[in-house]
């Protein structure tokens, strides 16, 4: 009998195309996703070396980071550099013959939302993208990691990546979540527990009843932030929900191929007794709705807590906390629920899917946002937007006073005009609260879509449980 394997072991073993004496492997890549910011130099490198894309049929490109999300975007991009990047992608996609969803296509959206939506991401695959949040695709039981531009060029040219195997970590969320607690609260709480470097050198497999109970959208939210915990990738074993989600998608297999794929996918789980190098267990019942208070995603506390003091920490974190409280304009001891905000951003590859918009709309139904609040919803893709309109969610947002935008990364990283001004404070459903992330001097508090919607109504960080 062969030794029990983890899910990661199984996917890894199925993709090794070559092993060198020192254990360095060439890992075969099944899907390569490409966006406009991290790819121009890679395509340029190919051209200079007279190389082609080895597997254009496995390479999918979509512009997302730079694109305007205002309704008039068909008129073009004002910022010259942004425009050049998007035009470069248009040209590279055409020249190298890869699949492409241009800005004008209703299927355009954030790369990590488009991949699963179009059935490109499937269980058991290896997926890479020049973007750290590629971890998102792990929700399907696909080994998905972010890579740098040199590696993008390497995958374009060879359809492989030079890799050494990571260690296995199991993160188990047992039991059930309490009302008002979501996938975002799980993933933030895990990072709060393990720290932003806790996952360095590991691939995390999330499991346990609370994970099984999540929808595919929720699982994507959890895996999306694996990278914020330092992990190389996050994984969730595929199950009936996964198969149901994939079935019938444009690029998912059909007919006999579907049956063959399904039979294989059902073998993708960690065997009993498989070895994990590290195990973290959290009780689902213990997770509260959380927000971040600092400038690192590990700066997480339940909304019922107060702003901490530097002296609550040890080592290098003491200075880091002092610096981040100053940047965030917060005083130790202030209850988080008294922190006033002026901007709300609902969107991103963490929380820009239909379920996220439903959760936010549920809170906003029949309510108005606080006077003077700037609030926007940026759907993760054109198809999410269309579905939300069909379900009447768009009307709820508009009536509440939100802006209803076109798809893109938008204020998640503020490369397009959607930015915070210095000192502005934002309740955001994205994944990073770094200094300047949403605009120079801007202050970001990360939270779930329901919590962000609640904050829009009250004008303060708010415990969503008070509104449900």
């Amino acid at each position, binding site marked *: 009998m062969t030794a029990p394997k983890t899910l990661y072991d199984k996917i890894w073993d*199925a993709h090794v*195309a*070559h092993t*060198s004496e*020192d254990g360095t492997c*060439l890992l*075969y890549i*099944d899907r390569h996703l490409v966006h406009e*910011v*991290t790819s121009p*130099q890679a395509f*340029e490198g190919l051209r200079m070396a007279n190389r082609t894309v*080895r597997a254009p049929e496995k390479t999918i490109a979509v512009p997302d*980071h*730079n694109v305007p999300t205002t309704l008039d975007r068909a008129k073009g991009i004002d910022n010259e*550099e*942004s425009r050049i*990047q998007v035009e*470069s992608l248009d040209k590279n996609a055409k020249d190298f013959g890869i699949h492409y969803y241009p800005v004008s296509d209703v299927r355009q959206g954030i790369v990590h939302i488009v991949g699963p939506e179009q059935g490109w991401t*499937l269980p058991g*695959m290896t997926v890479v993208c*020049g973007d*750290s949040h590629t971890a998102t695709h792990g929700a399907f039981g696909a080994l998905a*990691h*972010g*890579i*740098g*531009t*040199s*590696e993008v*060029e*390497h995958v374009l040219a*060879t359809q*492989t990546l*030079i890799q050494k195997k990571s260690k296995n970590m199991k993160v188990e969320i047992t039991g059930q979540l309490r009302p008002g607690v979501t996938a975002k609260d799980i993933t933030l709480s895990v990072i709060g527990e393990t720290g*932003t*470097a806790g996952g*360095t*050198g590991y691939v995390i497999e999330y499991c346990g009843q609370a994970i099984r109970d999540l929808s595919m959208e929720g699982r994507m939210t959890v895996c999306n932030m694996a990278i914020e915990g*330092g992990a*190389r990738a996050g994984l969730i074993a595929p199950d009936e929900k996964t198969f149901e989600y994939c079935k019938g998608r444009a690029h*998912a297999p059909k007919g006999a*191929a*579907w049956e*063959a794929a399904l039979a294989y996918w059902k073998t993708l789980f960690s065997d009993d007794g498989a070895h994990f190098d590290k195990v973290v267990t959290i009780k689902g019942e213990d997770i509260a709705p959380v927000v971040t208070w600092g400038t*690192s995603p590990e700066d997480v506390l339940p909304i019922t807590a107060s702003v901490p003091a530097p002296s609550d920490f040890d080592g*290098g*974190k003491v*200075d*880091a906390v002092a*610096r981040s409280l100053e940047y965030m304009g917060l005083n130790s001891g202030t209850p988080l629920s008294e922190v006033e905000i002026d901007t709300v951003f609902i969107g991103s590859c963490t929380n820009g899917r239909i379920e996220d918009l439903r959760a936010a709309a549920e809170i906003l139904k029949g309510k108005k946002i606080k006077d003077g609040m700037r609030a926007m919803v940026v759907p993760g893709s054109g198809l999410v937007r269309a579905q939300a309109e069909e379900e009447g969610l768009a009307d709820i947002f508009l009536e509440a006073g939100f802006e209803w935008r076109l798809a893109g990364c938008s204020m998640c*990283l*503020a*490369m397009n005009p959607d930015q915070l001004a210095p000192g502005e404070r934002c309740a955001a459903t994205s994944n*990073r609260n*770094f*200094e*300047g*992330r949403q605009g*120079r001097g801007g202050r970001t508090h990360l939270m779930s879509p329901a919590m962000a919607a609640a904050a829009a109504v009250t004008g303060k960080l708010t415990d969503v449980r008070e509104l449900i």
Partner: protein
Amino acid sequence: MDKFEKLSGVAAPMPLINIDTDMIIPKVFLKTIKRSGLGVNLFDEMRYDDDRAEIPDFVLNKAQYRNAEILVAGDNFGCGSSREHAPWAIKDFGIRCIISTSFADIFYNNCFKNGVLPIILPQEQVDALMKDAEKGSNARIEIDLADQTVTSSDGDVYSFEVDAFKKHCLLNGLDDIGLTMEKVGSIDNYEAQLSSERPWV
């Protein structure tokens, strides 16, 4: 790619943990379609004020560190976004080596692809080198990749670990893609097998 063999240079101290790639190179500079010219914007928001004047307190603006070739930094350097613009900016500024207790994974890999050597040392040794770096431009730290050693200005020698393949590529300035292309037969075989075993891929 540029080779990295030995380096003797001034080290700039940055005793801050979790220095993320947004700090190293803010996103406004990601709009380029080139790899070069990013050095002037390295640590841009920490380095310049709103009027684009240099902030005198920032370490790389101080006379003794303007030509620093080494950075000594706190835990988890390079976390956050996968942007290779971070090592491009570091290299373009003239820094060839970063010493810390830990690095984020993608950033760590990206460094090797660009002739920049990230060195992981235990906390006490990073603390000692941080103190050494604080002495300014007279204190030169020496790095020897072949021997895998860091030598402080006082002559203390610390050994570091580095993956043999990455070391080999960096010492010889080898291009990964060229090396992989030599194994194209294995990739062809793999693809042939793939089309029978998992044809839906």
